[in-house]
């Protein structure tokens, strides 16, 4: 399993969530974050804004779905055809175990089993 953490523009979140839902990835967690990138924020006149508001979308998916999910997010989160600075980043990291609290089901790369608390 993989955890996908995508930092996207707040105004693009709805588009990304809708696209993910329609492609069969309903489960997402969203958080407000602020940050800066390689461009060191935005400079407007004399003022530099280096804590730009963004949204962090987090989801855990099977390894096989990685390319599809990345394509969905990139397609929906990009500004214009070529994209623009500030469209965001996507990070992928390994997840060893995932538990569903309500049923106690444990998912690992090896398979699914039930655990009792």
């Amino acid at each position: 399993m993989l955890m996908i953490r995508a930092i996207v523009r707040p105004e693009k979140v709805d588009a990304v969530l809708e696209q993910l839902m329609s492609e069969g990835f309903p489960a997402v967690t969203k958080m407000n974050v602020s940050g800066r990138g390689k461009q060191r924020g935005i400079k407007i006149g004399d003022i530099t804004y280096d804590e730009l508001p963004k949204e962090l979308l987090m989801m855990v998916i099977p390894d096989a779905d990685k390319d599809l999910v990345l394509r969905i997010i990139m397609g929906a989160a990009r500004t214009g055809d070529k994209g623009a600075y500030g469209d965001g980043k996507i990070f992928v990291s390994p997840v060893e175990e995932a538990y569903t609290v309500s049923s106690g089901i444990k998912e690992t790369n090896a398979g699914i089993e039930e655990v009792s608390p």
Partner: protein
Amino acid sequence: MKEVMAVIRMNKINQTKKALVEADISSMHARDCLGRGKGLVDIQLLKGAEQGYEEAISLLGNSQRLIPKRMISIVVPDRLTAKTVSTIIAANRTGKSGDGKIFVMPVLDAVRVRTGEEGDEALDEA
């Protein structure tokens, strides 16, 4: 060491904190988030919508909505992973969908800023 990240119900956070302290896992990081899972799709509703009931169809749209949740993340030594997970499950389980998810991820290193200790020594539970 492992990071245990759990997304749980807002109103369970106090019970979870208490349960974790009682299990000697005291350090944690919590924040607010919004989320949706697979559980919102109700089979009854889907069936109703298929048969064309207006009421069921109008309720289906709600599944897009994000629900306020609490996210907690705890970094623990490998041997405490199972205990942390079972404590969180025991404190949060109501049996209904929306109870939350727990993810276990590898962490390469940890450093305590105050002293500069590295690895397992930097963890409170070590």
